[in-house]
């Protein structure tokens, strides 16, 4: 499938999802669906760095929360519409990604991972001590009753915005996968020294991947304040985002754009159901157990299992 056709297919799928949600007509569908879509965007963004280049980012929550807090700042200072705030949130998170990468990507991969954990705590401390965005008390956001563009219900509007972001992120991820850039990333993942020796500009590619991945996470976080209407550092920087960001791609499979989508839909839906029926602490435990179980037993995730099954059926 060519790039254009893929984007068209994505748009049709997105329209179908939105249409189906409208048909059900229950506000809860939009509330829950928004979270699942947000996780698709986050997992795919994580995979651009983690799956394609092999560098593990534990700071998903920080990139995500920085996008959200950018919105808080913009909301207080300006009256920009949300679709314009999202790229700005993306730029902020992208710059933070670039900075973290610049400091640590010349070292071994483990240092980058540890640094992202560290960055998350530094960012959370800064936000907690910054009174303008509410500090530790958190910030209230009054959302408009009606959406800026279509005059539809606000939660439906948020759902639509997130759906659009998912289309963009998936198109970008698949585009990267099939381009020279993607092959460059793959050489880094498979053998960085050999890649460097054959003239692949590894540091530049790694920085590009980190920046892109961070920017998409920031964009995914930008609508959050309008969704929750009350944002405090503990919930914005919640470890749930960090763990889901890692678990979803690894459970789904990191080798292709489809993996994070499968992982996010599966784990995201599971958590939505479990939060309602059991408890929110227990559903995080399920995510953790699935992460550990999958990396031990099925290192290539669900995609790997599917391919393995297909391979055996043919043989």
């Amino acid at each position, binding site marked *: 499938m060519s790039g254009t056709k893929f984007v068209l297919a994505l748009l049709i799928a997105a329209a179908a999802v939105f249409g189906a949600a409208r048909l059900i007509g229950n506000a809860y569908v939009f509330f829950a669906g928004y979270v699942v879509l947000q996780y698709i965007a986050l997992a795919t963004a994580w995979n651009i760095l983690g799956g394609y280049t092999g560098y*593990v980012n534990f700071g998903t929550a920080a990139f995500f929360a920085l996008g959200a807090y950018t919105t808080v700042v913009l909301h207080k200072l300006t009256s920009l519409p949300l679709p314009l705030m999202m790229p700005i949130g993306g730029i902020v998170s992208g710059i933070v990604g670039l900075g973290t990468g610049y400091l640590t990507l010349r070292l071994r991969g483990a240092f980058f991972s540890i640094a992202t954990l560290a960055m998350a*705590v530094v960012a959370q*401390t800064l936000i907690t001590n910054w009174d303008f965005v509410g500090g530790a008390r958190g910030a209230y956001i009054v959302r408009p009753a009606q959406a800026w563009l279509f005059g539809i219900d606000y939660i439906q509007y948020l759902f639509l915005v997130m759906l659009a972001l998912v289309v963009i992120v998936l198109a970008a991820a698949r585009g990267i996968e099939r381009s020279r850039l993607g092959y460059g990333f793959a050489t880094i993942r498979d053998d960085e020294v050999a890649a460097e020796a054959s003239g692949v500009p590894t540091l530049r590619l790694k920085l590009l991947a980190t920046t892109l991945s961070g920017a998409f996470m920031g964009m995914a976080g930008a609508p959050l304040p309008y969704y929750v209407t009350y944002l405090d550092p503990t919930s914005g920087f919640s470890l749930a985002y960090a763990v889901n960001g890692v678990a979803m791609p690894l459970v789904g499979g990191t080798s292709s754009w489809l993996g994070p989508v499968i992982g996010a839909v599966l784990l995201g839906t599971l958590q939505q159901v479990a939060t309602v029926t059991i408890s929110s602490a227990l559903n995080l435990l399920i995510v953790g157990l699935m992460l550990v179980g999958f990396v031990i037993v099925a290192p290539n995730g669900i995609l790997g299992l599917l391919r393995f099954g297909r391979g055996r059926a043919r043989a």
Partner: protein
Amino acid sequence: MEMSFDLLGNAVVSGLLLGGFYAAVTIGVTISFGMLDIVNIAHPAFIILGSYIAYIANTTWGIDPILAAVIALPAFYALGAAVYQVYYVAFERRGDEALRGLAFFFGLLFITEVTLVLVFGVDYRLVEAPYIGPSLHLGIVDLPLRLLVPFMVALVMVSGLQLFMSHSFLGRAILAVAQDPLALRLMAADPTRIKRVAFALSIATTSLAGAVLIVIQPVEPSIGRDYIGRVFAICVLGGMGSFAGTLVAAMALGIVESLTSTFYGPSWSPAVAFGFLLVTLAVRPAGIFGR
């Protein structure tokens, strides 16, 4: 703010004591990450587990927390050996430690934390012991015993491990596996077995580290995460595999943190450790004693 000499002196002394405690927390990472190249980011989770074991022993049977930790040492050693076995079979042997091995430890960290939350809730827990409360007074300097005792425990632990590493056959084999596993194999020693012993030892230290943690401050399941940055910052700054370096770096961080929280307020102190780590990685990734 007027900087009073009393305040400064006390901040430095309590920073030193805190640094000793940080050395106890880090020494396991110095072994696993510094020597064995295993990026065990779940290390702080095991420490919190140690704190809760000490808490249970202290509240149910009234056992001294540090004594309880000593009793629990073999159990933690066995736990460490088991974790290494899984890690070796699932990741190290496949050459897959970079991405999935890291995710594995991240998952362990998370599972431990959530399980503790489910069992004990998010309330702060604390222990009782005769040395929690009173202080020694030396001139203008106060020495709270709840910091002094962990400091002593840390010194005993670090010097014990140093003696073990430099004087026993097994200890030297661990140092050797850190330098060159292939050469060790050529000497007819099994690097995997030696790494298992060393990793088990690193987890055993978390029993004691957890006990002194809960002596110093009340513990709840998520505070382990605050220690990830600290332990790795200290380990890197101390030159990765060096015990002496770990001790010096831990004290440096302890003093900086104590000064920050005295003069700027305690809400900034987590950022200090992580800032320390980022600066170390950016400026001097080989550590203060590195070559």
